[in-house]
């Protein structure tokens, strides 16, 4: 039975960041990474660009073989973990190999959540989470004339833009009142939606798909909850994701919406950690733990998990996830960090909107501290804002300047904190 000190399952942002962190503290301990993917490690976020052709599939690997070699990491691709025996500290893979580990990191990410829409199960539909998904969608997109996208989240909108550019007539159906719910506020989403509509993409917000019509296992059209129908020879489901925890059944590892972890990303089992899209961890705003499901947080959590696993004393506990989003659309960008706080009367909101020019900015402050920022078409440093929010930097002394010029004021503040 192969034995490894560190076993990392999943070789994407969370897993790879953990590897980096482990090697910062422990240069030698045996380290094995198991990835279900046959491809070299890549990021799901890159997939829309694979679909569009902007990124060539052979050029998307996050790290090359030399990177793993230099870090003495044994990367096993095409190895899917199917069960974990936490009592024996053994992970079994689909190929039948049993890995004995001393410390285990579950960084298995998320998988698309497919809604129970009548007829959907009978057709070939697309999702976008893996490179193979992307290649399939790319090929299908080339021949599609009409496409319906379920969900106006990151995946759905990215795909809609790509499909539209590829020549299809695209409709996006979103159950919520506006696009990118949870990230953008209504005015920002309004600008984004207008941009999509300007390019002939039908955005049906506040709607759901109630059934799918098909022929020979191929979609023909979808019917909406208001009775309308949309032609669709390509169907993409982008209605969200669900942490990939299926293989944990019977392991004793506590799972809520995702794998429940503490502030060092440790699960209820002492030598098992989880990080990234698969984990459910402290929220920065609000008491209930969340599955944050964004790339920067997968990195953050992966680093913390790796440090904790290696016993790095520099570890600082996780301060909680918050929504962060940088959304490129048709060459423009919407950026949002934190929350709007619109339903909290003690939150001070400063908005500037030029709908015609598609420019927007919103700052939300509570008790002199930033809790959220959202911009469309205006430069903002998401990283600086994330720091100001998460460090709860007191902006009271510079509030006037900050409200007028958040970019420069934020940069100056961070420069000073750094020095």
């Amino acid at each position, binding site marked *: 039975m192969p034995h490894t000190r560190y076993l990392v399952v999943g070789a994407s942002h969370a897993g790879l960041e953990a590897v980096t962190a482990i090697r910062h503290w422990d240069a030698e301990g045996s380290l094995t990474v198991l990835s279900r993917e046959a491809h070299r490690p890549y990021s799901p976020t890159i997939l829309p660009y694979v679909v569009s052709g902007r990124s060539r599939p052979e050029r998307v690997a996050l790290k090359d073989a030399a990177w793993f070699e230099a870090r003495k990491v044994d990367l096993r691709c095409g190895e899917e973990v199917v069960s974990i025996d936490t009592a024996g500290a053994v992970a079994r893979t689909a190929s039948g190999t049993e890995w004995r580990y001393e410390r285990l990191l579950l960084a298995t990410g998320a998988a698309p959540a497919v809604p129970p829409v009548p007829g959907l199960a009978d057709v070939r539909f697309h999702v976008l989470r893996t490179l193979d998904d992307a290649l399939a969608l790319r090929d299908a997109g080339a021949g599609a004339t009409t496409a319906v996208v379920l969900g106006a989240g990151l995946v759905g909108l990215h795909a809609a833009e790509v499909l539209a550019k590829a020549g299809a007539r695209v409709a996006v159906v979103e159950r919520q009142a506006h696009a990118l719910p949870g990230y953008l506020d209504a005015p920002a989403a309004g600008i984004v939606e207008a941009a999509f509509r300007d390019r002939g993409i039908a955005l049906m917000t506040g709607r759901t798909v109630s059934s799918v019509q098909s022929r020979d296992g191929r979609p023909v059209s979808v019917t909406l909850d208001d009775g309308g129908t949309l032609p669709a020879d390509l169907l993409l489901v982008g209605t969200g994701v669900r942490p990939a925890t299926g293989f944990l059944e019977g392991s004793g590892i506590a799972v809520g919406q995702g794998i429940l972890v503490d502030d060092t990303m440790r699960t209820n089992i002492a030598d098992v950690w989880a990080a990234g899209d698969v984990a459910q961890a402290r929220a920065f705003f609000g008491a209930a733990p969340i599955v944050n499901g964004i*790339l920067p947080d997968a990195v953050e959590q992966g680093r913390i998990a790796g440090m904790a696993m290696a016993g790095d004393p520099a570890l600082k506990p996780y301060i909680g996830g918050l929504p*962060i989003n940088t959304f490129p659309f048709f060459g423009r960008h919407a950026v949002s960090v934190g929350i709007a706080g619109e339903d909290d009367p003690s939150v001070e909101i400063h908005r500037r909107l030029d709908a015609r020019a598609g420019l927007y900015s919103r700052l939300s402050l509570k008790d002199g501290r930033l809790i959220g920022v959202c911009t469309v078409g205006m*430069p903002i440093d998401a990283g600086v804002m*994330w720091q100001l929010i998460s460090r709860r930097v007191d902006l009271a002394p510079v509030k006037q300047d900050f409200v007028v010029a958040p970019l420069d004021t934020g*940069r100056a503040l961070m420069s000073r904190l750094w020095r």
Partner: protein
Amino acid sequence: MPSYETIAFRAQDCDGCMKCVTACAQAKSGADDPAQSRIQILGAAGKWELALCRQCGDPKCVSNCPSAALAKDAETGVVAWDADRCVDCLLCTVGCAYAGITRDARVGHVSKCDLCDGDPACVKACDRGALTLNTAARIHRRAAEREDLFAPGLAACQGCNSELLIRHTLRHVGPNTVVATPPGCIPGMGTVGYNGRTGTKVPVFHPLLTNTASMLTGIKRYYKRVGRDDVQVLALAGDGGTSDAGFQSLSGAAERDEPMLYICVDNEGYMNTGMQASSATTYGSWTSTTPVGERLQGKSTEAKNLPVVMMTHNCSYVATAATAFLEDFYEKLDKAIEVSKTGMAYLHVFAPCPTGWRFGSDRTTDVCRLAVETNFFALWDYTPDAGLTFTRPTGRPRPVREYLAGIGKYRHLSEGQVAHIQATVERKIAHLRRFERTGA
């Protein structure tokens, strides 16, 4: 790990002339448009700040990049950006706390400093010395190039940071100096020497435990009188000689703002003579005079908060430092040296004692770092004009328990005592915050 070049910024030397910005814009876009510059100078006169890629050792922009367009070059240390792979998603900007990678709307993608192949245009354009091209190793080499004014072979305990501290201090202060080392570990390790031999290449003396600051007063005043104002007087004193018996003379010198550089090397007690408690000994500490037994559980009272006491005297400069953050220390030391030409500069440096505190001699720097990161020992500096400035963030401290955990003198602490210490740490930080300057 190799050490790489980075561009260092000394805010106090920047006059906001923007020559660096123009030079960068020129070098990178052939235009003078400051928006095209990858270095930005922000703020206002007297408090210029910098937005520029720090070429981090552990770059988060790279970790956040889904397209492998960013990578840290192992050869040069430059965080390099590959236009061909970039998909313009801006996730890299989420990772950067310093606005070192930002989108340039004119070219339609992010841009960042690439150090101009090792010869940055901005550094060349800066005629004030505010920008310099540095490696960490070079900073240490620069210290090494200066003469070590202590003799080799000082006999400090294994793992003690005081020797490092005093050697580096004197390298910065230079030879035109008179050094006072009152009884304690520093003369104990042989700086003033034994039986007619000295451990120091500049004039050095043992004051009494009690009169360091007043002896230095007399020396400096006389040199001033005879036109040798450039003679620097320096105290390298322990916490006992500073905070206990030496406090009166220190207080008098501070009150008069006597030109001197006074460095208190705080190991929280009389470690040289067998670990007796001083007023700087922290609550709960085991020492040989605050022992642990059935009735006593270490020191039952708080430490005197001397740096704060000094801040409320008339000193021209007061700062705290810890050797886990050497560059922070250097910066304060340089400031202090400058200030001490005309007024009193007081540096309070944290000196964990492996021998007396009972921890492994390889852990001193960790203990320093943890003390800072838990806010047990906050890093700040103070001038009467600018008020107090924290030089390391205090907003997200680690629990003080993590600091206490590895230190033998705290081994006996009860949960209640730990909670008490945590509460004290928080109270002290809150108190310090009140001295922060308002209005940035």
